[in-house]
C-alpha cells in the first residue's frame, strides 16, 4: 500500500460521517501523529488546501472514469463519498427505514423562501406565501432544516430564521448559491426604488425565465 496523499485522503473520506471541507482535511494532516513512524505524518504536515482540492477533484474524476459504485460529491461546503443512484433499490432495503418522510409542498415553499432571504421573520415569509406559516416553521425546526438565527430590531423583535447545514445536506447542495436563480431571488424588492425600475427588472427576469425554460431539463 502506498501511503500517498491521495490514498490517505481516500481512507479519510471513506470513514467520515459528515462532509469534510479541505480545511477539515488539512487539520487532520497538521495534527496526525504516529509513534512508530513519526516521519511519515510529519511529511504531510504542511500540505496546502489548494493541493487537497486538486486531489479531491482527481479522486472524483477517478471514481467516475473507473465506474465505481460510489462517487465523490461536494455537499454543504465539504466533500462526501456517496453511492450512485443506480444502487438505490438495494440500499433502500438496507437503510431506508430510518429516513424521514419527504417534505410537503408548503414546507418546500417555505424552505425556498428562508434559504434565499435569510435571515427572515415569519411575518415576511407569510407575506410572500400569502398564508400563515406557523405550523410549517415548527416542522422545519423540528427536522433541524432551519434554525433561529437571531431577533429582528423591528418592533416586536420577531425571531429570524435561517437554513442549517442539514438543509444543504438534505438537498445535496454544495452551498446556497447552488439553488436555482439564487442571485435574483435574493434581490430585495424593497431595494428597487421606482415602480418603473421594478417593472424593468421583472421584465428582464421573465425573459430570463423563458430562456431557461426553453432549455431542455437542466439539473
Amino acid at each position: 500500500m502506498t501511503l500517498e496523499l491521495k490514498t490517505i485522503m481516500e481512507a479519510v473520506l471513506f470513514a467520515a460521517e459528515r462532509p469534510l471541507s479541505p480545511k477539515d482535511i488539512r487539520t487532520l494532516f497538521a495534527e496526525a501523529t504516529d509513534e512508530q513512524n513519526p516521519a511519515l505524518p510529519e511529511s504531510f504536515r504542511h500540505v496546502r488546501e489548494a493541493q487537497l482540492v486538486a486531489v479531491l477533484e482527481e479522486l472524483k474524476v477517478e471514481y467516475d472514469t473507473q465506474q465505481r459504485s460510489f462517487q465523490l460529491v461536494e455537499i454543504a461546503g465539504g466533500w462526501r463519498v456517496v453511492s450512485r443512484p443506480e444502487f438505490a433499490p438495494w440500499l433502500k432495503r438496507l437503510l431506508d427505514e430510518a429516513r424521514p418522510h419527504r417534505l410537503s409542498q408548503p414546507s418546500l415553499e417555505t424552505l425556498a423562501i428562508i434559504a434565499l432571504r435569510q435571515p427572515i421573520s415569519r411575518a415576511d415569509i407569510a407575506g410572500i406565501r400569502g398564508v400563515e406559516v406557523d405550523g410549517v416553521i415548527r416542522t422545519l425546526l423540528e427536522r433541524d432544516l432551519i434554525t433561529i438565527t437571531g431577533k429582528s430590531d423591528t418592533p416586536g423583535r420577531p425571531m429570524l430564521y435561517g437554513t442549517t447545514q442539514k438543509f444543504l445536506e438534505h438537498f445535496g447542495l454544495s452551498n446556497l448559491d447552488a439553488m436555482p436563480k439564487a442571485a435574483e431571488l435574493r434581490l430585495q424588492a424593497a431595494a428597487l426604488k421606482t415602480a418603473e425600475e421594478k417593472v424593468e427588472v421583472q421584465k428582464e427576469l421573465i425573459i430570463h425565465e423563458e430562456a431557461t425554460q426553453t432549455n431542455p431539463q437542466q439539473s
Partner: protein
Amino acid sequence: MESDYKVKLEVFEGPLDLLLYLIKKEEVDIYDIPIERITNQYMEYLSLMKLLNLEVAGEFLVMAATLMYIKSRMLLPADQQVTDSEAEEGEDPRWELIRQLVEYKKFKDAALHLGRREEEQSNIFYRQSPDPGVDVDADVPLAEVGIFDLINAFNQVLKRASDREDFREIIEEQFTVSDKIEEILYTTRERLQVVFSELFAQASSRAEVVVTFLALLELIRLKRMRVQQQQAFGEIQIVRV
C-alpha cells in the same frame, strides 16, 4: 353562475397559489391581469370550495376583498383616483398584487426544484453517524428542582412583572407557548445554562410571563430542559439537555 367544472380541484397552498392557477388556466398575461375576469373566476372557486365543504382559510377571503378593491379602483377615471399616501402617482392599482404574484411564483418554482433534488437525494446513500443520543449527566451534581420551587420562583417573577406594568404604551402582543419554547431554546443555544429569572427579564406583561412559564414547563416535560438549584431557595438554573 353556471360552471362546467370537471371537478378536479387542486389543493391550493393559498390565495396566491389559486390566482397563479387561474392566470395559467385563463392563459392571461401576469403583467396585465384582466382583473374583472380573474376576480369572477376567483369568487367562483371560493364558492365551489365552500360547496365542497372545504375549509376556506381567512387568507382567501382577504384576497377576495383585495381583488374587489382593485377592480373598483380600476373603474374610476384616472383623475378621480384616491391618492393613497403610499402609492406612487398614477400607479396601476394592480401593481402590488402583480409584484406579489411574480415573487411568489419564483419561490414556488424554487420549491419545485428543491422537491426534485430531494427526490434525487433519496436515491443516494452515505455513511451516517448513529444518533448521538442524549448525554445527560454533565459534571456538577445539582439538586433537581421540584414543581413547588418552580412555582415559587414563578410567583416572584410575576410580582416583579406587575410592578412593571403601571404606565406604559399599550401594544397588542400575542404570545404563544410554542413561540416561547423556541425563544427559550434560542436563548440557551449558546449558553447551556441560564438563570431562571433571566428568562423573564424581557417580559413586558403578566401574560408574557405566564406563557414563558408554561413554555418552560413544557420543555421540562419533553426533557429538553432540566431545572436545578444549588441550595434550597437558591437561584434556579435552567439547563439545556
